[in-house]
């Protein structure tokens, strides 16, 4: 291990001491008041009982903090944009071809539909069970990664991905603006949502719709990131 010469041992011992201090304060704080804290989550759970969504985490992510989620997928989009821009700045002519073996190709051909199906399932049932748009999108992108690894000539269809991503982003904002128009607040739940439907597939108004949109956007962005990184590592 090569330590940097001009960071003396004293700095490290200082770090260790500060860590000990922080830990001591932390444990004292946690032990004294862990029972008495009134959690904001209890209030949210109370509101959530009128919202008709079985998964409280989903309703926090998509509904109570829906505007944050819009910003979050914007950050993801900017990261994908940065990676894509740097790749296209000097595009390599060819990925040098080394065929992967037959077993991998056949297995990935068999597995890809099931991976996509599972991703879509996780995406659509995000308001009923653990999972949701982000997880489902990443699962679909992992299927694309499998195809990229096993088929050297495979390219993610660029036009399709761009169209999906644009459509998803625009419809997210449009649904938010519709809520603003109908219910006077951004991302208002304007679709009818009945509490007695809780636990059914069609329930919760716009919440499953928005999570599916998030899933499409995350899946397409992650597929582009994966493809750009694979191309990059090939063309050295």
């Amino acid at each position, binding site marked *: 291990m090569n330590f940097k010469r001009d960071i003396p041992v004293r700095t*490290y011992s200082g770090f260790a001491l500060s860590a000990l201090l922080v830990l001591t304060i932390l444990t004292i704080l946690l032990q004294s008041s862990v029972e008495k804290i009134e959690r904001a*989550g209890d209030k949210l759970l109370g509101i959530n009982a009128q919202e008709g969504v079985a998964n409280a985490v989903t309703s926090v992510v998509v509904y109570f903090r829906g505007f944050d989620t819009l910003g*979050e997928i914007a950050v993801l989009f900017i990261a994908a944009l940065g990676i894509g821009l740097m790749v296209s700045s000097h595009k390599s002519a060819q990925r040098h071809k080394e065929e992967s073996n037959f077993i991998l190709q056949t297995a990935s051909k068999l597995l890809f539909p099931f991976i996509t199906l599972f991703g879509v399932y996780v995406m659509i049932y995000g308001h009923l069970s653990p999972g949701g748009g982000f997880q489902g999108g990443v699962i679909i992108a992992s299927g694309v990664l499998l195809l990229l690894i096993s088929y050297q000539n495979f390219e993610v269809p660029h036009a399709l991905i761009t169209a999906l991503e644009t459509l998803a982003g625009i419809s997210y904002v449009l649904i938010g603006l519709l809520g603003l128009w109908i219910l006077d607040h951004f991302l208002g739940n304007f679709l009818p949502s009945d509490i007695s439907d809780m636990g059914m597939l069609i329930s919760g108004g716009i919440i499953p719709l928005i999570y599916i949109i998030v899933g499409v956007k995350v899946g397409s962005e992650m597929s582009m990131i994966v493809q750009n990184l694979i191309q990059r590592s090939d063309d050295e």
Partner: protein
Amino acid sequence: MMSSLLDWFIQPDVITAIVAFGSMGLFFVGLFGLLTQRHLIKIFISISLMEAAVFLYFLGTIFHRELTAPILGDGHTAFTGMNDPIPHAMILTAIVIGMALFALGVSFAIEYYKLTGRTDINKMKEMGE
């Protein structure tokens, strides 16, 4: 003997202490790597370790054994006696952002290596002396 040891471990205070100490240790492992390593990609991996420590700390401290996951189903019909859903949602956001930043940083590092052939941050001259 074994069961009494396990009973001691599942006390809430002990679990909280284990989570706090463990995630703090992981955080300092990441910080150590950030300060001592000079390879660009190792630095990004250290930052990811620190992020993972923060995620573990958040999720571990809100976890209570007697409370259920904040999802209806499996016999639960009311939103009572559940774990706090807010840290779950926050960490979900933070994981996605952290992943995007890690991918962007690694791609910058690869691009830098392809342009200059260097990965050592001590030998970077582009920022000026």
